[in-house]
């Protein structure tokens, strides 16, 4: 187990290095520079600008300098927001995105798990069909449809909740974005739990537990559920990747000042350094969460003896 964890941790910098290199190579070979969009600058001014940002040096040198910066947590200046460094922008935006993602994960687990268990226990009932119908819909509905529709219903028609904005993390402003982000996740988790619980309930050791005369509740809570939750644990890795992806949409729909919105703007504005910085930070978060989920899975499931 420890050896496995060490091996996975050792692979992390390699993957990160690939991400950094890929981001650098691809973004730098993009046609169109960050200073192209303005009215054409005098060549002298443009040359000065490029020198100020180090864009006139050979690519290999730029790459080396960039790598050294990244290791020290310095992603360079943003090319678009002139007075801010990429690091400052990330530090500004990350709390918003993390709050959003964390709340969405909690909500998805807190609602999805009970719904899945309920559906599995009442298999074939109207309740089961209802929950699973909603789950199919939840998985199929993309967040950029759910978000605007929720705003339309709860913000514009019913006037229950604010339409957009952040307001320093005021909880009422958080509700709709969190629901939008959590809904597909919640639906998927409910489906996952139902499926795996039903499968576990078929197994021999559950039959044995029932044969010993244990009650329904005890069989499910003590014996079936721990095993049935394993797929959910391993899903948490992809789930964070989903939350990261979803945050781009949710922050756009609800005009939240998070890193997801920065990434989209940066991509549209060809703000090279900001795109690279965001991709690296998001890549790191996704990789770490995947690693954590895999390790937790290995730790919880005694059948997996990694490389021992």
């Amino acid at each position: 187990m420890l050896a496995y964890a060490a091996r996975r941790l050792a692979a992390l910098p390699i993957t990160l290095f690939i991400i950094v290199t890929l981001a650098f190579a691809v973004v730098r070979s993009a046609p169109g520079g960050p200073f192209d969009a303005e009215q054409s600058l005098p060549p002298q001014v443009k040359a000065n600008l490029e020198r100020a940002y180090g864009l006139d040096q050979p690519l290999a040198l730029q790459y080396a300098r960039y790598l050294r910066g990244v290791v020290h947590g310095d992603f360079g200046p943003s090319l678009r927001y002139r007075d801010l460094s990429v690091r400052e922008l990330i530090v500004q935006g990350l709390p918003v995105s993390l709050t959003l993602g964390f709340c969405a994960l909690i909500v998805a687990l807190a609602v999805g798990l009970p719904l899945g268990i309920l559906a599995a226990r009442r298999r074939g009932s109207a309740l089961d069909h209802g929950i699973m119908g909603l789950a199919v819909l939840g998985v199929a509905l993309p967040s950029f449809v759910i978000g605007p529709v929720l705003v339309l219903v709860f913000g514009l028609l019913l006037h229950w909740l604010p339409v957009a904005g952040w307001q320093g993390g005021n909880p009422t402003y958080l509700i709709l974005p969190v629901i939008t982000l959590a809904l597909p996740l919640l639906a998927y988790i409910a489906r996952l739990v139902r499926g795996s619980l039903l499968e576990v309930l078929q197994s021999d050791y559950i039959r044995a537990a029932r044969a010993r005369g244990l009650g329904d509740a005890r069989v499910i809570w003590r014996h079936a559920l721990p095993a049935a939750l394993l797929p959910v644990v391993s899903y948490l890795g992809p789930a964070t990747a989903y939350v990261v992806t979803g945050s781009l949409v949710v922050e756009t729909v609800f005009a939240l000042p998070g890193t997801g919105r920065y990434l989209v703007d940066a991509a549209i504005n060809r703000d090279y350094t900001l795109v690279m910085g965001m991709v690296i930070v998001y890549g790191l978060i996704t990789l770490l969460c995947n690693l954590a989920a895999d390790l937790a899975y290995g730790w919880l499931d005694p059948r997996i003896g990694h490389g021992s």
Partner: protein
Amino acid sequence: MEVEGSISAGGFWWQAGWRLRRKPRALIAGAVLLVVVLVAMLGPHLTAVRYDALDWNALAVPPQWSDGHWFGTDRLGRDLFVRTMVGVRISFLIGVLASAVSLVIGVLWGMVAGYSGGRTDEFMMRAVDVLYSLPYLFVVIILTTLFARGSLVVLFVAIGAVGWLTIARIVRGQTLILARSEFVEAARVIGVAPAAMLWRHILPNLSGTIVAYATLAIPQMILFESFLSFLGLGVQEPLPSLGNLINDGAREMQSAAWMLLLPAGFLLLLLLCLSVVGDALRDALDPRDSAA
């Protein structure tokens, strides 16, 4: 030889068709899909209004039958029926082409890896693992910043280029099994070259898997395209796609909910029908793992 082959191939597809016919839900979804796609292909020709034509006498009018704007118009007076239909067409086209790109790459990669085995196999699949661990969205965002935005070719190549990983894994697994089977052994004994072997003996046996995967890949690719277009990184104005129509609609929904709800409805209809049909096809073509 030849007669026997054709009977068994026909048998497989005939059986699949038979299993498919017993799924009324899939048949209905398929019919709806056909109608939507047909209307999307033909619809814009029926009204003779171009998707980017401005109608100054009808700015942001709600849906109505009388003046010909069946889905209303947007802020610039462009007919939303035509725009939605052209949007469906573009989204569908990108979905199909991106799936095709990812299938070609994935099937080739998987077949070569699975058939070569050993070092080559290990290296190729390790590459897939590394790419898998990269958040695919960033790869696409980087790819779309790389090239001139708005180019449809770039868009479906970018989407297809990250979608091939799953199919590569599936195909490799199947090829591993096929490579060890007796008929491949026999072909090898009579001296069939590797390329011919893959093309003539392995590929036909993968066709069921490939078709099943393709139909499930299309809705994913459509979703992906709309996602990018919604963010402003995909299809660019004035060209409509379901994604940027939904984005436009979301901005206007306070006064004009139809601008959001109509394209969103069509996107959902398309996705739902495709995944129902895809699921049914997978069950029909691959009866072994219909439980999954």
